[in-house]
Each structure stands twice: as structure tokens, then as C-alpha cells.
């Protein structure tokens, strides 16, 4: 299986603080890969480095066959990105935002094509609204549309279901599932272990800037089932969340 993303020895620092401490990671083609970790584990910093938003202190990032550090613009053209807190020009309509981002990726769309795309995410009646006038679920759907407007092979999603109601989450996961069926690879972060267990092909659990373990949810559960900490965390059948708590601890993070 070919890989969509390979990261080796990635290190991200903010002054003396090490946010990402030399992680290795590989996302395969057509795979949904979950990057899990408590707040401050380094997930968003790792994604930001892949997205080209910050310069890593060390390490290699290869997207498809492109060295992202040597050719950042080419690498960005291959990526679809949904940031944790996304906003668009406040006074532009949805149609204008779609036209802007399509243009930035070199995609030309006619007005009927844009309306068709908005129709696919049930926003055809909101075409002339501003982004801030949308509900949380509509904003997430629209952000995902913008992230994939150029048909990227690899999509990065930073906590895509945060703040969504169950219906919104279900719709989003259906859409993500559709991406996988179309052959795209997805790297996402989430705090929902239940969702990660249900949807991700593989997950990496990260804490203090390091990857603690990687595998399929089922394999991770099987590997840690007999760990006393996991058994202590479990209420009944062992879940991915029990493994997560056992590996990253129970203390609250900021």
C-alpha cells in the first residue's frame, strides 16, 4: 500500500517548550488515521507543521512524493485542511468564499457548479449568506467543502466534530467515510475515543509531544487489555478510551 504522508523525526518547539518531540508517523492511501491525545499533547502543533503553518525545528515531512519542507507550496496544493477554528472573510457570501478558495487552488468553477457543490452539503439555500450566519453544523460542512474543493489526496481535519450535535457528527462522519471510499487519506485529531474506535483504521496516541502507541483500535485494545491500569480504567468491556486514559493518565489538562 502506498503512503499519503510520511513524517520522520518531527520536532516542533516554541522557544524552550518542546511541543512535538521527534515523532514518526505514516498515513497510508485510503486510510483514516486518528491522532489522539489530551489537550497540550502536541497534536495541533504536529498538524500545523504538516500544513506549513509553522516551521519545525527538525524532521522530514513527505506528502505523497513531495518533500513539504523543500517545496511547501506544492505540498499545500496536495493537502485539504480543516483547521480547528476556521473562519472566512466576514463579509463574503458562501458563493464568493467558494470562488476564492477554488481560485487559490487553481480550480475554476462556474456559478451553477458552485451551487451544485453547496447543494451536496444541503447549503443551496444559504448560498448568499455569510459564513458567520451559519449554524455550527453548517459551518463544519462548509469548511469541509472548502478543504476538499481541489480534490486533495490527503485531508487533515483538526477536531472536526468539536461542538457538533449527534446529527451533525453523524453527517460529518458519513462524509468522511465517503472521502475514504473515494480513495482519499484522512489524518484527523479528535477527543472522541468512541468515534475514533468506530471510524479510524489506525490511531496514534500522543502525549507530551511523543507518540506512545500506534495501531488499529482493536489491536491497541487487545495489546493493552491485561494492563492493570487499563483494567482499572475500564467499566466493563475494555474500550479505546480505557487504553487512552491508562496511557495518558487521569489528571486534567489545560
Amino acid at each position, binding site marked *: 500500500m502506498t503512503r499519503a504522508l510520511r513524517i520522520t523525526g518531527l520536532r516542533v518547539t516554541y522557544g524552550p517548550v518542546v511541543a512535538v518531540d521527534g515523532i514518526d508517523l505514516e498515513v497510508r492511501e485510503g486510510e483514516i488515521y486518528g491522532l489522539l491525545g489530551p489537550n497540550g499533547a502536541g497534536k495541533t502543533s504536529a498538524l500545523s507543521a504538516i*500544513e*506549513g*503553518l509553522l516551521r519545525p525545528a527538525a524532521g522530514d515531512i513527505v506528502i505523497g512524493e513531495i518533500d513539504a519542507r523543500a517545496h511547501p*507550496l*506544492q505540498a*499545500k*496544493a*496536495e*493537502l485539504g*485542511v480543516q*483547521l480547528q*477554528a*476556521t*473562519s*472566512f*472573510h*466576514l*463579509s*463574503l457570501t458562501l458563493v*464568493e*468564499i467558494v*470562488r*476564492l*478558495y477554488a*481560485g*487559490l*487552488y*487553481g480550480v475554476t468553477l462556474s456559478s451553477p457548479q458552485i451551487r451544485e457543490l453547496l447543494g451536496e452539503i444541503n447549503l443551496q439555500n444559504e448560498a448568499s449568506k455569510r459564513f458567520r450566519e451559519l449554524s455550527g453544523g453548517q459551518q463544519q460542512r462548509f469548511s469541509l467543502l*472548502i478543504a476538499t474543493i*481541489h480534490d*486533495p489526496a490527503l485531508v487533515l481535519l483538526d477536531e472536526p466534530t468539536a461542538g457538533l450535535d449527534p446529527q451533525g457528527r453523524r453527517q460529518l462522519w458519513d462524509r468522511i467515510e465517503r472521502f475514504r471510499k473515494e480513495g482519499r487519506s484522512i489524518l484527523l485529531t479528535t477527543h472522541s475515543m468512541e468515534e475514533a474506535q468506530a471510524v479510524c483504521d489506525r490511531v496514534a496516541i500522543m502525549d507530551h509531544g511523543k507518540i506512545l502507541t500506534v495501531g488499529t483500535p482493536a489491536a491497541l485494545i487487545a495489546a493493552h487489555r491485561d494492563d492493570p491500569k487499563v483494567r482499572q480504567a475500564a467499566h466493563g468491556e475494555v474500550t479505546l478510551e480505557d487504553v487512552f486514559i491508562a496511557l495518558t493518565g487521569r489528571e486534567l489538562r489545560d
Partner: protein
Amino acid sequence: MAVPTWSSALKVLLRADITAQVRTPQSLVLTFALPLILLVATGLGKNSAALGGPAFRISLGLTVGLVSIGTVGYSLAIARDRDTGVFQRLRVTPAPTWTIMVSRWIVQVGAVLIMAMVVLVVAAVFLGITLPPQDYLFTVLVTLLGSAVFLSIGQAIVGLIASADTLNAAGRLLYVPLIGLSVFGNTDRLGTTVEMVSRWSPGGCLETLLSAAMGATAWSGQSWGALFASFGYSVVFAVIGIRWFRWVSH
């Protein structure tokens, strides 16, 4: 997937930024209403002549427009988009990062040019203040230089102040001295020290240059000094603003 050229990226960014600028009521007020109100208001009252001649009225209107657009409006818009994550979203696209900011600058310079045209047309048509043709050209050129000065001051503010709320307050606070200093450059009513500071302030230099461009005063050594000082202000504030600018506010 091919990377779009910088020119095509700049083109779509410009289209979006122009639309956003036109749709923001606050920016329209800052762009046109304030300069025009001052242009008209300075001609009212019995003692209005004491403030200065027709050239002074035009130059004050232009200076207010430049400070409003370049320093206050620009820095607030940048801070707001930085706070809400608009820039981060743009930065993950394959558009070269510099095109994001250059597009904003071009829109602001365009707004300044339109403001200058409107002020000059209103002055000529409604107030009867006309200039020889070459003076219109010089006035527009000086206004362009002024836009560089006040945009770079706006860039420096947004580079040094991370929080949009703090920047909002600082922008409003700076508004008064930037315009006030430009007013008192031609009078020693507040003392020679204030006059000296005022004359060599960014607004004061602009007043000197506009006055010369409109033929109200002869081009002199002081005009040259104001020209060099304006270039200096542009470079220094731009370097500060670019060097310390952050794309995120936290």
C-alpha cells in the same frame, strides 16, 4: 496537482478583499465621510480662514482620510481577521504568503486614491476650490506617498500589538495625535516645540508636501526634508510592522 501562479492567487485575493472592503460600512464611513465632513466643516464659521486657506482644507481632508484608511481601518481589519483565523485559513492554501498581505495593501492604496479623487472633486464642484492640472497630479502623488506612510504605521501597530481589543483602543488613541499634529504644523499657537514636533510628525510632513503640491507654498528645503522624512517613516514603520508581525494573535 499544479500550484497556481502568484498572479492568479493575487487576482482572486484582490477580488475577495475588494468585495470585503466595499461591503464593510465602517470602512466606507472612514474612507469618505470623515474627510468630506472636515473638508466642508473647516469652511464654516467666521474664523475658518484662520485655520488656513483652501489648500489647507483639502490637505486636512486628505490627511484625515489617510489616517482613517491607512492607520486605523487597515490595522483594525488585519487584527480582526488575524483574531478570527481568516489568515491561517488562507495560509494553508498554495497561495504564496506574501500575496495575502500585498492584496490588502493594494486595496488600501486603491481606497486612498478613490478617497483623494472624491475629496478633490467635491472641493472643486461643490466648494469651488480648484487647482491647476499639474497640481492635481502632484497632490495625488503626495497622497500615494502618504498612503505608504500611514499604511506602514498601521502595519507597525498591528505588528506590535497582538490583541484586537488593545489594538482597537490604541488605534483610536493614535488617531487624535496623528491628525492633531498635522494641524498644528503651520502655527505656533501652542508654542514652538509643539510646532516643531508637529511639523516633522508624519501628518505634519504630509501637510508640508500637500501644501507644496497644491501650490500654496513654494517647494523649499523644508519640502525636501518632509519628503525624505516621509520616505524614512515608511521604511522604518514598515520594517517594524513586517519584522514583528504574527499571523496569529496568540
